[in-house]
Each structure stands twice: as structure tokens, then as C-alpha cells.
């Protein structure tokens, strides 16, 4: 813990911007019912209201408050992305570390299975499976987690192979340590830094992937608020933007709001990831 505070004090300004952004999203997501002025999916006003009180960011095609939906969207999209990434990492990292440590027949079999999964374009593959299973949240999480764990598998296997050449692994093996000890105590702590950095990146990809699926209509289903879906719903509004007054111009901004929310979070996470990567690389400049 002392170590983390120590590192935080040394963090560059870019990392701090990232931390502020991520904390802001986290607070919004956790406290969504408190911050949102209106309910998530109830029609609370007329259709297509411009930006004015009490609907500061206007209303959508069904008269739902856009600001409230953006705030709930943080909870849904980010929450699902987080669970999915965590699952992908548990799966990918366990198999990756095991494949490297056990070796033998297990490694080639696991690696080839992963190769086959990676050979199919993930979006097409996800669309295919989701059409079969139906678009429940559980199915969404499981499908994306399995697809994404292939990348994590590759990375953790490569990192672990580097660590396994170290003499301290040989010492542990000479002592007769079991597989669990080797993976849990000798390999994992040393693989943590690159894996954490990858977690940040993968989180962004998963997040964009869910948004893309929602945009295509196979992700999070209405009326649940979700940023990808919101982009889709409001995309056609761009055509109605009228730049005569700033209030009519806001129609043009409507699809940019959820898209901007996605972009900002992606940037924030990446700023933190850059910093973690720099620390783990040991560079001093």
C-alpha cells in the first residue's frame, strides 16, 4: 500500500488526468440513481427537446432525458465491460500461465485452440454466436470474454516463458514445488505489471466491442441505456442539425455525446496504462 502511494506521488501529469477521468466515471456509474435527474427508461417529456432546463442535454426520440441516460449508460456499459474483461483475464491468464509452466502436450493443444479462435474475425464470430444464443447480458459477457481471453492467453504465455528461464524458477523446481506454487507465487507476481497494463487496454477494446455490438443491435438491448445503442439511435439526427441557432445545432451534437463519453474514458484508461507500462519498463528518462 505504501508502495502505491509512493508511486502515485511520482505520477506524471498525464497519468493524473487519466486517474481523474476514470474516478469521475466510476463515481457516476456507482451513484447513477443519485446523480441522474430523471429515471433511466421512462418518457419524461416531449420528443427531441433542445438543450434547455430541465432537460439540459435534451430528450431523445421517445422523450427520455439524454443526460440521465448517459449517466445510467456509464453504469451499464462500463459495468458489463469490466465484468467481461475480468472474466477474460481470469480465463486467459490462467490458461496462458499454465500452458507456459506445464509445457508438454498441454501447451501446443491450448495454443492451437486459441489460434483457431483468433483466426475467425471476432466481430463476425460474436454476431454469429449471439444470433444463436440470443442477446442476453450473460451470453454477451461470456461470448466476448472467451473471444478476448485468446489475446490474454497469448500475452501471459509469452511473459511467463520469459520468467520461467530465471534461476529462481529452477531453484523452486529443484525444491520440488508443485504447479500451483510455481504459477501463483513465482510466475504471477512477476507477470503482474504487463498484465495490468494489458488489462487497461483490453478493457477499452471490450468496451468498444460492446458499443459496436449495441450499435449493430446485438449488444445491450433497449430500453437499457447504453452508449453504443445511444449512438445508433441518435445517429440519424445529424441530418437534422440546423446551425441557425445554437439550440437547433444541438441535434447535430446528440450522437457525439455518447461517442464522446466512450472516447474520453478510452483516453483516460490509456493515459494510466501508459504510465504503468513506463514504470514496469524500468526506463528512467
Amino acid at each position: 500500500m505504501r508502495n502505491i502511494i509512493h508511486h502515485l506521488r511520482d505520477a506524471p501529469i498525464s497519468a493524473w488526468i487519466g486517474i481523474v477521468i476514470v474516478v469521475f466515471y466510476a463515481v457516476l456509474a456507482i451513484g447513477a440513481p443519485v446523480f441522474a435527474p430523471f429515471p433511466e427508461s421512462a418518457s419524461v417529456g416531449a420528443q427531441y427537446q433542445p438543450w434547455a432546463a430541465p432537460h439540459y442535454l435534451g430528450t431523445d426520440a421517445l422523450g427520455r432525458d439524454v443526460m440521465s441516460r448517459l449517466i445510467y449508460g456509464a453504469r451499464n456499459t462500463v459495468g458489463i465491460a469490466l465484468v467481461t474483461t475480468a472474466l477474460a483475464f481470469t480465463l486467459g491468464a490462467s490458461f496462458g500461465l499454465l500452458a507456459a509452466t506445464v509445457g508438454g502436450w498441454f501447451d501446443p493443444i491450448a495454443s492451437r485452440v486459441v489460434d483457431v479462435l483468433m483466426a475467425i474475425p471476432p466481430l463476425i464470430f460474436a454476431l454469429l454466436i449471439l444470433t444463436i444464443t440470443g442477446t442476453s447480458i450473460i451470453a454477451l459477457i461470456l461470448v466476448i470474454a472467451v473471444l478476448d481471453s485468446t489475446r490474454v492467453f497469448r500475452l501471459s504465455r509469452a511473459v511467463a516463458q520469459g520468467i520461467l528461464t530465471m534461476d529462481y524458477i529452477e531453484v523452486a523446481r529443484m525444491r520440488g514445488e508443485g504447479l500451483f506454487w510455481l504459477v501463483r507465487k513465482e510466475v504471477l507476481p512477476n507477470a503482474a505489471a504487463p498484465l495490468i497494463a494489458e488489462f487497461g487496454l483490453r478493457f477499452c477494446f471490450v468496451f468498444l466491442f460492446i458499443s459496436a455490438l449495441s450499435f449493430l443491435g446485438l449488444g445491450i438491448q433497449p430500453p437499457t441505456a447504453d452508449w453504443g445503442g445511444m449512438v445508433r439511435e441518435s445517429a440519424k439526427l445529424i441530418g437534422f442539425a440546423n446551425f441557425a441557432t445554437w439550440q437547433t445545432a444541438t441535434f447535430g451534437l446528440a450522437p457525439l455525446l455518447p461517442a464522446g463519453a466512450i472516447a474520453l474514458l478510452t483516453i483516460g484508461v490509456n493515459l494510466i496504462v501508459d504510465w504503468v507500462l513506463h514504470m514496469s519498463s524500468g526506463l528512467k528518462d
Partner: protein
Amino acid sequence: MTDLLLDMKNIKIEGWSDRQWKPIIKGVDLQLKRGEILGLIGESGAGKSTLGLAAMGYTKGGCRIREGNIKFDGIELAGASSKALRQLRGKRIAYVAQSAAAAFNPAFKLINQYCEAPVQHGVMSKEQAEKDAKELYRKIRLPDPDMIGFRYPHQVSGGQLQRAMTAMAMACRPDLIIFDEPTTALDVTTQIEVLGAIRDIVREFNTAAIYITHDLAVVAQMADQIKVLLRGDEVEQAPAREMLANPKEDYTKSLWAVRDFRRAPPVPREGGETTLLEINTIHAAYGTVKVLDNISLNIRRGSTVAVVGESGSGKSTLARVIMGLLPQLEGVITYDGESLHKLGAKRPRGLQRHLQMIHQMADTALNPKQKIKDVIGRPLSFFLGLKGAAKEARIRELLTLIELDPDEFMDRFPSELSGGQKQRVCIARALAAEPDFIICDEVTSALDQLVAEGILRLLDRLQRELDLTYLFITHDIATVRSIADEVVVMQNGVIVEQGSKEAIFSPPHEPYTELLLSSVPEMDPDWLTNLLKERDTQVTAG
């Protein structure tokens, strides 16, 4: 015109760590005349590499030159623009790194890398540079000088690579070359050739050189002047011969005396000698490459057997076979009358406990994410089932045994320890299993001489107190002289000669043993000259 080439005055260099600038070099002066060789010696952390690099106006990442003047042939380097520095580096000042294998780009042929600097600086055309490269390769005594440049770095040996690197540094005929421990990673027999080649070529072109090393005997052969550094300060400087004959400061004297350690002769054992480990006609191979051929060896309880040989002689492989990491193809190893399974994992835990190994590189042998108490504590709970207070008490006992303060070191991570301290922790980890037999694989070769001597004394004391048996793998003859009872000389996977230390070190020798023994640098500054002359006459006579 003055013949002073490099004039560094009151150099202060700092490094950034723990959120503050910490001094690395604390105000050192350095003068170098044209054609002169200055030897910089000191332990690791003394700042000798940092000072050497500063002579090029360069500092490593996270360091800065805070104060001082670096005048190279009248040009001020401290604070000079990177453009001005680029003009000088590679052309008038060159650098030869410790590990040539790591310093060469593995994707390009040697001669192409040679041509880079002269072509870049506009000294020669590509064709001229290639012709010149072959000429220099010949001068530096590389085999097949016309063709060797067209090989890739991995296709030549370590000694040849180091010579190719020296030739490359010479490409623009610089005024100054900085050699940063160029022979430290080489075997003694190869080291001689490289030293001779470097010395001749530097003399021939009247190049000034700064020669950084921790090996006194090497610096004695190379340098005109010797400067001794200690923790960023100069201890003393004098002409080489004067310094060797008559060191003034206490620290220098302690450096000079370091190779004098000799263990007390072992006391004859009560109840006669018993064999602890018997190695019987072992054959082993990596894939299809045979590395051990018919090795047989008896190790008496309580003795120290030293295995000597160059890299590639199979001595570390022997250790791996004994520990059960590499299953032998043929042959049996018996421990205290019991035959050992060839796979370590299949040996009973009680038996495995008795055999321990200490690695060469303490850096990679300690898990960087485990505290010292966890490193030493694991074998205690694994082999002996110790827990809680009993385990902590034993960790404290072990740390005291290896002369580290338990309160200070228990909660540290390996990165917070010096090289010697790390190696001590590795020893404690081996001792935690309460073994009878320890394999020491080059345990001192990565350490400074003073520190290494401390480790040897510690191992010797532990042997007497705990009745341990050592198999000591090393390429350093001085280490063998200090601690061995019996010596085994290995070459290309076979045992060339074995016997008691007295028998091995007194003539007549086997030819290979003779070569090995005569290649160990001595403090006599004329040693290299005489030896090379002697070998030349032998070649001409033969």
C-alpha cells in the same frame, strides 16, 4: 601544442533515485595524454563506468553532470550540444562495451556495422571502409580476416566478437577509446588473446585509452597509469609499476592483498573418510549435442571438490545432472549409498533436501517480488514444516549465520540488496534446507574481488561449522587455490585431469591444465609480454 588530450576537472555526476539527486561521482579529476593508457579500477558502484562515459560527455539515463569541465583536445564537452557531441563520438572518441554480444546488432554482418561510423562521419567511402576493415581485422589477429567480416555476430566466438568490436572502435582512428571491462565476460584463455590484441593495436596507432576493469592483474598488463576509485571518490593515482610495487592507501593495499586467502587445511576425520556422492560413468546431452562424456567422480564427506574449465566444458551441466534437472542418458549417481533418480522431481523430499545448489547470478536466482524472509522461509516450511514463531526464529538464526542483521534485512526485497548481500541470501536459502551437500556454481564470479573473498570466507566457515560438502564450479584458478581440497579439470565434456589440489598445481601438468594455469593473469606488469613471447617461440619451434 600540448600533448594533453583529455582534461576532466572536478567532475560531479548525480543520479536520480528515491525522488532526489544522489551523487555518483564526487569531484574527480582525470588527465590523459595522447597515446597513454589509464586504468580505472574499483568495485562495482565505485563510479568507474560513469566516469568513463563522462569522458565522452555522456551519462546514462537518469544521471546528469552537475559540475565540472571536460576538455577534449580543447573542446568543452560538458554542456555541449548533442550535434557537437555526435561529431566527436565514433570519430574521435570511441567506446568498447563489456558485452560485445549485446552491443552488436544481431541482424547485420560485422563488416557492415564496421563501415557505419566511417561512412556516417564522411571519413571513408563504403569500399574504402571495407578494405580498411579487413586490414584491421588482420592487425587484431582475427582468423580469416578477409572473410570473417561477412559473418553475423552469432557466428563468431565471444573473444573474436570482442576483438571485432575493438577493430570497429578503431575504424575512424580515434584519439581516445574507452574500454569498459572488455574481457570480464571471457574465459582466461580467450582473455589473453584479446588483451594482447587490444594492447598492440592501441600502441600501434598511438591511441589514448581509458581501460575500466575490476581485475587488478588485467590492469597491470594494460595501463601506464592506474587510478583507484572508491564510492565516487579518487583514492590514489600513480604510474602502473609504481602503484603495483608500492600502493600508498590502505584501500589499495586491501585490493592488492585480496587473492591471498587460503583456507586452513582440513582436519582428518574421525572414523575415516567416507564417500558422500559417487558419480559413475555419466553421459548427458542436450538434444543430439553431447555435453558430458563418461564422467566419474567421488566426493568425500566434508571435502571441497573444485571443477574447473572454460565455458562450454560441461561443468554447469554436471551440476544440473546431479540436481536432477537434466536426466542423464547413462550412468548412476549414488548419494550416501542410495541411488538417485535421474529426475529431481521423482526423488523423495527427504533426499532432495540434502542436495542444494547456489547459482552464479544471485540477481536472477532471487524472485524480485519476494521479501528476504519469504525467500529463506519457504524451504523451512517446505522441507521442515516450520511455522509462525519457530520459522521466524530460524530465519533470524540463518541471517545471523550469513552475517546479515535480521532486523534490517528480513523485510527487504532483493532489489534493495547489494550483489554480495544477495549471494549471502542465496547461501542462507540453501542452508535453510539443512543440506549435507551444496553445489556452488560460479558463486563468486559475478562479484567484486573484496566481496567475493568475503563469500569464500563465509562458505569456508560454514563448512567447518556445519560439516558441509561442496562441489565448487568455477573458471577462476585463484578461487580454486583458496578453497579446494581436490580439483577436477574439464574440457569439452570430459575430465582431463583430477586429483588433490597439490597434485594438480604442481608439475608435470596435462597440456590443457598447463594452458589454463599459465593463462591466469598475474600482478607482474611484464607477465603478458613474456607469456605471449614464450608462446610465440613455442609455436615457431613446434
